[in-house]
């Protein structure tokens, strides 16, 4: 289980600061909810942790993100093993243009697994883990794009887990889902935190209340407050956190 510390992380798009001087530690084997109003930099924060921010033109990142003491923002960081370690579940389920089976096997194949039997077992294990196996077991070789959006999001979760990451980065993973699918994903998270550290960006305060052990509150690119969920939700220190929790700013 790697330990993540963020030190003086600053991100600017085209010279304009989007995240300024963020420093904090992400607790291990817990669900850390990242909350804050739209546009406050939650996605940007997440994208720094697996360096997907590199794909954004004009983004300038300074500071450090230390994983077990190693700065992953360093230019010579090994992106492949970093991204293998940090699984991502994005807001919009993004099925790959291939079959359901190949979607789940995609990551393991990238990382060198070829054996058919092992792949079969792995695909089944992770499809079960995100509770979609029963729905798709008879059509594993049909295009993944034919699944419903809720099913696709669970498929994406299986696909992310199949890479065997150690940390899960989730960007509003239930935002495009119906209540039932959302609930299923939430249940998975509570089980998964036994083995993974989970960073969960969410818009829904109630979801943070339900799931989070630790809460991070961003406002306009600034890390305003972070702390254990109980403390932050019931006894916030900063006025902006109070305002956000009471719904006066959103």
């Amino acid at each position, binding site marked *: 289980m790697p330990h993540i510390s963020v030190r003086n992380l600053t991100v600017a798009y085209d010279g304009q600061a989007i995240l300024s001087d963020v420093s904090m530690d992400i607790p291990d084997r817990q669900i850390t909810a990242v909350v804050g109003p739209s546009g406050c930099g939650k996605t940007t924060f997440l994208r720094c942790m697996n360096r997907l921010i590199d794909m954004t*033109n004009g983004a300038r990142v300074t500071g450090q993100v230390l994983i077990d003491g190693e700065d992953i923002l360093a230019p010579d960081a090994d992106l492949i093993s*970093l991204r293998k370690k940090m699984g991502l579940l*994005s807001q919009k389920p*993004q099925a790959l243009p291939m079959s359901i089976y190949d979607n789940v096997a*995609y990551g393991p194949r*990238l990382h060198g697994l070829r054996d058919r039997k092992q792949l079969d077992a792995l695909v089944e294990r992770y499809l079960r883990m995100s509770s979609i196996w029963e729905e798709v077991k008879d059509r594993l070789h049909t*295009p993944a794009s034919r699944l419903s959006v809720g099913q696709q999001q669970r498929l994406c979760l299986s696909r992310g887990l199949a890479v065997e990451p150690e940390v899960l980065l989730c960007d509003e993973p239930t935002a495009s889902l119906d209540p039932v699918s959302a609930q299923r994903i939430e249940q998975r998270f509570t089980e998964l935190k036994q083995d993974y550290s989970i960073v969960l960006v969410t818009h829904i305060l109630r979801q943070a209340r339900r799931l989070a052990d630790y809460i991070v509150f961003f406002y306009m690119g600034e890390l305003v407050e972070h702390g254990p969920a109980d403390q932050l939700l019931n006894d916030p220190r900063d006025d902006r956190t109070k305002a956000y929790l009471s719904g006066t700013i959103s």
Partner: protein
Amino acid sequence: MRRRAVEEGFFRALMVLAVALVVVGLLLIMAIITAKGVGSLSWEMITQAPQGGYYLGKSGGVLNAILGSLALAVGATALASIFAFPVCLYLQQDYAGQSRLASFVRTSLDLLWGIPSIVYGAFGFTVLLYLGMRASLLGGMIALTLVELPIMARAMEEAVRMVSQDLKEASYAMGGTRWETMRKIVLRQALPGILTAVLLAFGRGIGDAASVLFTAGYTDSLPRTLLDPVASLPLAVFFQLGTPFPEVQGRAHASAFILLVIVLIISVVSRMMGAKVSKYSVR
């Protein structure tokens, strides 16, 4: 309300008119070629090379030109793909992106697209002379490659650009390298468009006369090696139309008809392939 209905009706009529003009024009061309050509079309036309006195109306066919054109266009299309594909991948945001080099390459391709193919022919001819070669299948292929490259690279780039950034990032997020992402995701998702690009270029290549005029030459014998001159269908049409004999001119139309059928077959086949490969595409 009334005004908007009239507006709607007017522009609809305009569109229908434009479509009708285009379709009628195309059908007319095909009808004329068919009408004038089918009479001269025979088994002999497509199975024999020209015999002695063919251009005076004696027996023979244009097998030399059919094979020559296929060899030229297939070779040039293959060569052009080898270059166009990496170019279109490189122009993506993941590699060169918005850099100055990328926009320079795009502009150059657009410029190259507009250059008349006779210029490529002349350029190719100069190169051949310089290398001490004569007009040949290889020379023709190279000139045709230059003709096909811009159209193919630009059309491929359009197809590849349609692949969403989110989709690519899904692959990167699992630890895929850029090349793995290109090969396994972008290529798959863009394959129908890439096939269309190849087909477009092939159609342009097989129909082009000017670029092969000096570089491939013309001969009545069948192509044997890369360094021999070859005949081509567009030039066969040109030479036969240029004779004063009606039966030879009829054969010119028959040759044009054969060219049309070849392009049609390639188009249908690639469309079927496209439908097959797009089964897994995500929208």
